[in-house]
């Protein structure tokens, strides 16, 4: 079975994580590295994807600064989203030509991995018709936004483990007037690292890649 190297980056700023992804995408493109899965947590940040609209931002830039929330425009698909402590971020750097050249299948697979992770923690999650992401009883628990360059993926998914949900009030997540939820709110006491390990395993199963466990420890 092919391998996917898991790298747990701990808490990493959005700009640093973005630069790292760009670098890895280049390396993956040139075949210098294999598939990677970056797992991390961002400090409070609001990012706006390519389809984003300032309309979905409810606070001024100055206000965000005062609240200690960074703001970045970025090149993933999707609209506005919030990331912060307590949210597990997964950025797979995969060459889809070695899996399936199908972006919809890719997003479905990401959702599938998250649904299975939540199932392990006793949370029944699923999809909502016509919308992406993972949902629990009509509330969004995981968001998806992906960028693809010559079939190499970057960006990925954000799963709410136990973030401060009140920070989502400064945005209209993904332009949708839908509530957000977290694993904590759905009754799970799981820690970020437990969820992180489970996601690495489930991700490997869904994409038929063996998670390279040796890299599971933190990379400084």
């Amino acid at each position, binding site marked *: 079975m092919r391998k996917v190297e898991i790298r747990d980056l701990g808490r990493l700023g959005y700009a640093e994580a973005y630069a790292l992804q760009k670098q890895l995408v280049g390396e993956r493109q040139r075949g210098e590295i294999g598939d990677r899965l970056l797992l991390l947590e961002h400090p409070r940040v609001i990012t706006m994807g390519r389809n984003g609209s300032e*309309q979905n931002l409810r606070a001024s830039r100055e206000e965000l600064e005062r609240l200690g929330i960074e703001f970045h425009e970025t*090149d993933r*698909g*999707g609209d506005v989203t919030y990331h912060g402590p307590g949210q597990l971020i997964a950025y797979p750097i995969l060459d889809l030509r070695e899996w399936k050249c199908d*972006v*919809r*299948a890719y*997003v479905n697979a990401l959702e599938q991995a998250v649904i299975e992770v939540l199932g392990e923690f006793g949370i029944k999650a699923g999809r909502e018709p016509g919308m992406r992401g993972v949902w629990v009883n009509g509330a969004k628990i995981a968001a998806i936004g992906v960028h693809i360059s*010559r079939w190499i993926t970057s960006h990925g998914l954000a799963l709410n483990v136990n973030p401060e949900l009140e920070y989502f009030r400064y945005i209209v997540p993904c332009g949708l007037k839908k509530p957000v939820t977290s694993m904590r709110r759905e009754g799970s006491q799981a820690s970020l690292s437990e969820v992180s390990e489970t996601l690495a395993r489930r991700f490997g199963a869904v994409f038929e890649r063996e998670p390279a466990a040796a890299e599971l420890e933190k990379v400084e």
Partner: protein
Amino acid sequence: MTDVVMPQMGESITEGTLTKWLKQVGDTVERDEPLFEISTDKVDTEIPSPVEGTLREMLVEEGETVEINTVVARVESADGSGAAAPAEKPAAETPAAESPAPATPVPVAPATVTAPKGPLSPLVRRLAREHNIDLAQLQGTGSGGRITKSDVEAYLAARGAAPRAEAGAVTPPAQTPERVAPPPPAGAPKQRIEPMSNMRKKIAEHMVFSKQTSAHVTTVHRVDITMVARIRNGLKAQFKERYGFSLTYLPFVLRAAAQALREYPLVNASIDGSDILYHNEIHIGIAVALDNGLIVPVIRNADGLSIVGLQRSVVDLAGRARARKLKPEEVTGGTFSVTNFGSFGSLFATPVINQPNVAILGIGAVTKEPVVVAGDAIGIRSMAYLSLTFDHRLIDGALADRFTQRVKQILEGWTEQVL
């Protein structure tokens, strides 16, 4: 020339949205250098140039959604091998690009349809549609007599660049009376089933959703609009001559409403759970009637526009709404709405709130009436009813009436210069 098409990004994917051009016409590109980005299913993908050369044509606009295999760009390869064009898709397979929203057919169609020679690019089709050109009348100069963009431009220049169908005011296009159906022959079925258009379905959903969401209450005020009517009549000809479109009552009402909204910000708010969301900007949606449909394009920052600016926005948005040329972002983000049912002769009505707004102002027909004026005399005045439907969850009657009174007061005592 090498065509770059909208790629199929997955088995079940039939279309993609162009989100961003990364190069402009005339830019040189390397082989595999990204030309543009597309979006499907929250995935943003860079599309690289298949050859090294110069970007010559951009056939799809940012924000446009097109079917897969639609030609998006043409790149002239560096070695000048223009003749060896790789398999171009026949035009029949690349239906003209449409924005994602259209629900009913575009009303403008060339009267006679004679198949023009050769395949047509989406750009040529679009130009033809926009300018109402019968392509059969054109002599193509492209390979095999094919009609190119420059042929269309030359034709347009020759035609004297006659403006396309004059964008009317917000009053609807002249209504053709509904054709009287002949009585059905005996034994014909008693019902007929017709699936609703997408637009109809959306309107239906939105109306029921709004009625279930808000506590609708309508208050009606009568306004003496004589002053505005005089200004309008006095300037009518001059205005039309100077700007090319007519001056209606609507921009006066919009201007008055924008000012009143500034003074009563709660009327410009929304409800979000148990929070009140005050909008610091005033974006007014205007209801535009379409053939069997309705759309509410938005005039952004309406309070910053003069009467001329407002009238221009109304004409532009209403014209493009009827031509199905509004961009998605032009029909969202409104903070208040205005509807002009008076243009259909209605005296007053009880409009449904356009969610997530908390109020909508309706304008009835302006009619000359005998009214009691100062000194208990009877005068002939131009009168109209303003109806404000408000969401009683957030706005109480007293506020709704103060707001409407303020609109009335501004209209009755109109002092602002128009030209």
